[in-house]
C-alpha cells in the first residue's frame, strides 16, 4: 500500500469532486441556462438569432390564461392527490402496524405500485377508464351508479388522474409511516392503556402525534413529486381534452418540444423550478428542526 499524504489530507474534496463536476455541468449550468433563455425571445422554429428581451416573456406568459389555468390545475391536482394519499396512507399504516399472518406479503404488494413504470400504469388506467369497454364504468353500473366519461370529459379528467396518482403513491406514505411507527417506543401507549385510555384515544392522542414528523416529511416528499407529475398525464390525456388536464409540467413540455418557443417555455420552467425549490427548502428546514 502506497501512502500518498497529499491525497490523504485532501480526500474531503478529491472524493466528491467528480460528482460535484457532474452535477455542476448537468444540473446547475442547465438551470442557469434556462433562466438566461427565459430572458430572450428564442424560438427554434424561426431560425433568427435570439435577442435579449429582459422580462418581456415573464410579462407575457405570467398573465396568459392558459398558463394561469395550468398553474391553478397543478395546485388542485397536487393538493387533492396528496391530501387523499396522506389520509389513506396513514390509515393503512395504522391498520397494518400489528403482527398478523401475511404481513410481509402485504408489504411486498405495497411496494409494487411504487416500482411500476408510470407510463404503463397510465395506459392500464386508460383501459380501465375507456367509456365503452372499461372496467371502471362496469363497476359503476354494477353498483347501480351512472356511467362516467372519466378522462374524456373536461369536468372529470383531473379527478380521474388524481385517482391514478393516489393508487400509485399512497403506498409510499404507508411504508414510510410504517417504518416510523416501528421506530417508536411502546411505553407511552402502554402507560395510557394502563390508565384506561381507549384504542382510538391512544391512536389519536399518542401514536399520531409521536409519528407526526415522519408523516410531515412523507407528505412534503409526495408534494414535491406530485407537483412534477408528468408521465401519467402525458400518456393518458396529453393535457386534454382541450387543455383540461394541462399542468405546469405539461405546458412546459409543449412550449419547449412541440411549439419550440424556448423563451416562453423557459419562463414556465423557471416558475415550476421555483415552486419545487420552495417546497425543498421547507423540507430541509423541517428536517433540521426535527433533528435538533
Amino acid at each position, binding site marked *: 500500500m502506497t*501512502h500518498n499524504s497529499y491525497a490523504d489530507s485532501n480526500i*474531503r474534496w478529491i472524493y466528491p469532486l467528480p460528482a460535484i463536476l457532474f452535477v455542476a455541468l448537468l444540473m446547475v449550468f*442547465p438551470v442557469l441556462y434556462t433562466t438566461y433563455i427565459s430572458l430572450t425571445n428564442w424560438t427554434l422554429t424561426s431560425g433568427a438569432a435570439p435577442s435579449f428581451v429582459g422580462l418581456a416573456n415573464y410579462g407575457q406568459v405570467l398573465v396568459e390564461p392558459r398558463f394561469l389555468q395550468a398553474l391553478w390545475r397543478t395546485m388542485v391536482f397536487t393538493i387533492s392527490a396528496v391530501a387523499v394519499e396522506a389520509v389513506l396512507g396513514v390509515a393503512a399504516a395504522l391498520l397494518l402496524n400489528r403482527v398478523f399472518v401475511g404481513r410481509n406479503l402485504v408489504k411486498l404488494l405495497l411496494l409494487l405500485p411504487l416500482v411500476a413504470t408510470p407510463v404503463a400504469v397510465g395506459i392500464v388506467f386508460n383501459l380501465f377508464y375507456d367509456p365503452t369497454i372499461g*372496467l371502471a364504468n362496469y363497476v359503476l353500473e354494477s353498483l347501480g351508479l351512472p356511467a362516467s366519461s372519466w378522462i374524456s370529459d373536461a369536468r372529470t379528467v383531473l379527478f380521474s388522474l388524481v385517482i391514478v396518482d393516489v393508487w400509485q403513491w399512497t403506498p409510499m406514505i404507508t411504508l414510510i409511516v410504517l417504518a416510523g411507527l416501528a421506530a417508536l417506543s411502546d411505553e407511552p401507549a402502554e402507560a395510557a392503556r394502563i390508565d384506561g385510555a381507549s384504542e382510538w384515544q391512544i391512536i389519536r392522542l399518542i401514536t399520531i402525534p409521536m409519528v407526526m414528523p415522519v408523516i410531515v416529511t412523507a407528505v412534503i416528499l409526495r408534494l414535491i413529486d406530485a407537483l412534477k407529475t408528468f408521465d401519467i398525464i402525458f400518456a393518458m390525456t396529453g393535457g386534454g381534452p382541450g387543455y383540461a388536464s394541462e399542468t405546469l409540467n405539461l405546458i412546459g413540455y409543449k412550449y*419547449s418540444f412541440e411549439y419550440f418557443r424556448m423563451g416562453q417555455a423557459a419562463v414556465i420552467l423557471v416558475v415550476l423550478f421555483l415552486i419545487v425549490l420552495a417546497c425543498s427548502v421547507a423540507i430541509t428546514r423541517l428536517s433540521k428542526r426535527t433533528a435538533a
Partner: protein
Amino acid sequence: MKKVGFKILFYGAVVLLAAIVLMPFLWMLISSLKTQVDIVAWPPKFVFSPTTQNYYKVFAEQDFIRYFFNSTIVAVFAVGVSLLLGLPAAYSIARFSQRRLALTILLARLMPGISFLMPWYIIFSRLGLMDTYVALVLSHVLIALPIVVWIMSSYFETIPMELEESAMVDGASRNYIFLRIILPLSGPGIITATTLAFIFSWNNFLFSQVLSMEKTRTLPIAVFNFLSYADIDWGGVMAASVAIMAPALVLTMIFQRYVVSGLTMGAVKG
C-alpha cells in the same frame, strides 16, 4: 366474541387493500392474454380462453427486443457511472458531514427533470449527441446519482469510525481504507442503491422521450407509441406493459427488504 369480530373486520380491510393494489396489475395481465375480440367485449369478460398471441406479436417484432436492449444498456451504464461518482462522494459526505454537498446532489432528485431537459436538448443537438447512448446515459445518471449518494451516505454513517482509525494507525492510506475496508462492508447498501437506481432509470419516460429517437429508443417510449394508432391494439400494449414492468417487479420481489429500506430511509431518519 368481540375479538373474532375485530379479526374478521381487520382481515376484510387487509384483503380489500391488497385487492385494490393488485387490481391494475391483474387486469393488465388478464388483458394481455385476451384476443382483441375478448378485450372489447361488453360486459368485460372474466372467463375467456387465454392466448399468447399478443406476446408473440410484441416479441416477434424485431424492434421491441432492441428497445429492451436499449433500456438495459442505458440503465446499466447510468447506474455504473453513478456508483463510480457517487460512492466516493457519499463516503466523503458521511465522514466529513458535508451536509450542503449532500443537499445539492439531492436537489437533482427533487427538481423537475424538464428544467434541465430543455438546455440539454439544445446543447446535445449542437454537439451532435441527440439519439446517442452517451446523451441518454448522462441524463439518466442525474436520476441515479442522487439515489446512490443519498442511500450510501446514510449507509456509510452506520459503519463505525474505530475500524478506520485502527487501520490508519497501522499506516493504511485513505484509498486503501475506502476500497479494501469500507466498500467490502457495504454490500447491503450497494444492493439497495443499485436496485433502486436501476428501477428509476428503467422507468424514466421524459428524458428518453426527448433525447432518443429511432436508434436509442427505450421501452417506455416504445410502449407509449402503441397508443398513437387510431385503433389501439389493447392486447399488444398490455403484453408490452407486462414486459416492461416485469424486470422492476421481479427485482423488487428479490430485494424486497432493500427496496423498502431505500425508499423509506430519508424520511424516517429526518
